[in-house]
């Protein structure tokens, strides 16, 4: 029962963060701001879901179901790189920020 609650909670937390990320993606007003949200919110979202999954299958099967951790690991390794590369692309494309300015300081 407790496990059920925990799993359910983790699922809900996970999807909530994912949702916030996606919402931010639509809502925020310039590209640079939009890059933030999904990177973080979704990683946390996925993280929660994966933990939920781990607990669920561990209980369900009776043996440790831990391979979901790999996905978390992988996402945590790659998400910042993706964000970095997107930022660089944005700068390179000379996208305007929310104030209509182009960040010139470091070029691309």
């Amino acid at each position, binding site marked *: 029962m407790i496990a059920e609650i925990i799993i359910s909670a983790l*699922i809900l937390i996970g*999807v909530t963060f*994912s949702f916030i990320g996606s919402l931010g993606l639509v809502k925020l007003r310039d590209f640079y701001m939009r890059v933030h949200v999904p990177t973080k919110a979704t990683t946390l979202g996925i993280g929660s879901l994966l933990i939920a999954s781990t607990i669920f299958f561990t209980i369900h099967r009776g043996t440790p179901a831990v391979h979901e951790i790999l996905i978390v690991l992988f996402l945590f390794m790659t*998400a910042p790189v993706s964000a970095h*590369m997107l930022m660089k*692309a944005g700068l390179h494309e000379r996208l305007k920020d929310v104030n209509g300015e182009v960040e010139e300081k470091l070029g691309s």
Partner: protein
Amino acid sequence: MISVAINLGLAVMCLCLILNLIRLLKGPSTPDRILALDTMYINTVALILLFGLRLERAIFFEAALLIAMMGFVGTVALANYLLHGDIIE
């Protein structure tokens, strides 16, 4: 209770994907679109995990892992394309 959470989760994730697609279509810039695509990949991982939970079958792990990997590679490739005009050199 778990199944309610899972179903709710699935619905929310679908909503997420819809939001992502909206951004992708709206753009306005190509980096925006790539960003939206990247987010879609990650949200898809979530969706598939939830689906696995719902079926109570652990056969979707590889798919989830692969989506994460491929999403990353795709994003990097697209960003590289914008940065250098080509993606590798």
